[in-house]
């Protein structure tokens, strides 16, 4: 299958701000593709260029092999769902949905048939003659989806469609969007700053930063193997250790006559401030002496009262529990180790009421396998500011297993 939708070297500047900096992306037919990033990363600009509301300074946009860069928005076979829905307030829901078909001069019979099919899909047949200001936010959202889908667009563009809804409704709409995508079989291009939404819906995600695509991949690839510390911090929670790469681990192990580890893997030792040295899998062949961030996801860490058995390539740290947050399906611990405040998430697989839970102030052991950490280049000051930006909308969606991004907490 050839590429369905392509951005080829697309650039767009607003004055000195590079909203889109030589972006090249391709989306497959039928895919649920998300553009994810903090506000001002250029994700909305890309979407608006595809819709035709903005035109790129340079580069081309191809849809199904056709160059649509210079085609006005009303001639593009794409439809948009706007953040504030943008329903026509003077028209009934029925007429809102029929708008595109009427403009396209479809026959009356055809319009009636298709609008009613859409109303059935969104389960609002009985409210067809209401005006947009008489229905709730979630219903408006569904009408907006119907109004776009009824035109059978080649691509459906969704611009932060859930941002204006409250948490409960958002979670329900997430499921509905997923269902609609499966049923309609249309390519979805989804723009969001909410990593939870992107993770749970997308086939693939492009994480954007300052007008560039930072990483492109499936949700699992992006979560489990972030290419940069920005991605690691933005997608989900992580602990960062600020360290320097020391000599490879295997050599040391062999010299001391200890158990030789799996030799084809290459582990490096990291020197981290006043902490004991840590081991990390070094697949990127980062050289000795480099400054890096060691990133470890909270759910990859084990916490225990007793000292775990020493095994090769398992890092162990001793610390004091500073905070415990019980979340039902899991518990979150904050453990102080030297200058680091490390977050640990423990899934409750089994829970015995007589088990003595780990409490605030206890001395504990933290351990993880060297394979579960990854070394990343340090992100710049500028990115740190990006990550601290408050979320654009009502709040974050805690979608498991990736709670709200909170990168800075682990580093203080």
């Amino acid at each position, binding site marked *: 299958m050839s590429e369905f939708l392509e951005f080829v070297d697309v650039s767009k500047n607003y004055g000195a701000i590079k909203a889109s900096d030589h972006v090249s992306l391709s989306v497959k037919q039928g895919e649920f593709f998300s553009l994810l990033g903090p506000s001002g990363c250029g994700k909305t600009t890309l979407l608006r260029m595809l*819709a*035709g*509301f903005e035109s790129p300074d340079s580069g081309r946009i191809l849809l199904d092999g056709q160059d649509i860069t210079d085609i*006005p*928005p*009303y*001639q593009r076979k*794409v*439809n*948009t769902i*706007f953040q*504030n829905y*943008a*329903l*026509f*307030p*003077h028209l009934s829901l029925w007429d809102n949905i029929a*708008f*595109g078909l009427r*403009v*396209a001069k479809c026959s009356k019979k055809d319009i009636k048939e298709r609008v009613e099919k859409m109303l059935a899909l969104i389960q609002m047949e009985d409210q067809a003659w209401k*005006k947009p*200001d*008489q229905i709730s936010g979630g219903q408006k959202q569904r009408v907006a989806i119907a*109004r*776009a889908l009824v*035109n059978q667009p080649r691509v459906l563009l969704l611009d932060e469609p859930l941002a204006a809804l409250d948490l409960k409704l958002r979670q329900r709409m997430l499921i509905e969007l997923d269902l609609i995508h499966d049923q309609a079989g249309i390519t979805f291009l989804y723009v969001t700053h909410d990593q939870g939404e992107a993770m749970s819906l997308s086939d693939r995600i492009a994480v954007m930063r300052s007008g560039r695509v930072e990483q492109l991949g499936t949700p699992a690839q992006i979560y489990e193997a972030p290419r940069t510390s920005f991605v690691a911090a933005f997608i989900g929670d992580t602990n960062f250790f600020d360290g320097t790469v020391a000599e490879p681990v295997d050599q040391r192990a062999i010299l001391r006559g200890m158990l030789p580890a799996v030799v084809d893997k290459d582990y490096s030792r990291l020197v981290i401030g006043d902490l004991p040295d840590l081991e990390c899998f070094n697949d990127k062949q980062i050289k000795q002496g480099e400054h890096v961030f060691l990133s470890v996801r909270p759910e990859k860490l084990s916490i225990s009262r007793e000292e775990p058995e020493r095994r090769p390539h398992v890092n162990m740290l001793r610390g004091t529990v500073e905070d415990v947050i019980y979340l039902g399906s899991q518990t979150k611990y904050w453990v102080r180790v030297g200058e680091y405040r490390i977050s640990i998430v423990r899934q409750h697989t089994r829970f015995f009421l007589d088990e003595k839970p780990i409490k605030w102030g206890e001395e504990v052991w933290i351990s993880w396998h060297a394979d579960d950490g990854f070394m990343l280049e340090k992100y710049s000051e500028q990115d740190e500011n990006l990550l601290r930006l408050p979320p654009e909308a009502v709040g974050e969606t805690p979608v498991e297993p990736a709670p709200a991004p909170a990168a800075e907490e682990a580093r203080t």
Partner: protein
Amino acid sequence: MRPSRVPAIVTWAVLVFFYLPIVVLVAQSFNSSRFGGHWESTSLKWYIALMQRDDIWSALVNTLVIAASATLGAMILGTSAAFALHRYAGSRLQKVHYSVIYMPLVLPEILMGLSMLLFFVALKIQLGMFTIGLAHVTFCLSYVAMTVLARLQDFDYTIIEAAQDLGAGWWTTLWRVLIPMLAPGILAGGLLAFTLSIDDFVISFFVAGPGSTTLPIRIYSMIKYGAPPLINALSTILLVVTFACVTISQLLSRNKRAPGT
């Protein structure tokens, strides 16, 4: 402590000051006496006499023709002006534009009338209905622009993008989305313009030519030759029409949030 009575007294005094003359005028229009000094009997005789005055009727027709065309012109120009003002608010050019649109609301009418007279004479345009209509458009469009601008305050431009996104070109967007959405504002402004045009005297007086006498000018000349009871009747009718227009105009601009509309 009892609340002070002063506010109530002042309110009544103001109301009496403003509206007593009008009440007297309306009452007198039903008085059959030739002179307003004493009450003879209640009758509609002046209204009937009014029906037979052809000069008044032709003046009324002139007034209505001018008002209708001035209103139409003002609605089109005023709406376009308001749209430009709102869409590009903040640009320096639009600040100038706003002042230009706002000016006729504060400028002394006599100044406008005089300057327009000089302008028309300089261009050697025959004074008449056409010049009165043109002059009326200039001040009416300000009122339409201001009314539409008020309605545009909570207008969401993504609506326009949504229309385009759904395949509507500029023309379709204008007719199917923009005008229907702004219609209450445009109509309210239009009605305001209509009433202003109907009772405008000063500007009309300056730019009127032979055969283009409007109702206010007619009334003025009638007063000079003394026919107060007729004028009372005519004024009462004008009052009712104006009041109706203004009421509808206000209902239209207030009603925008009412459910089910």
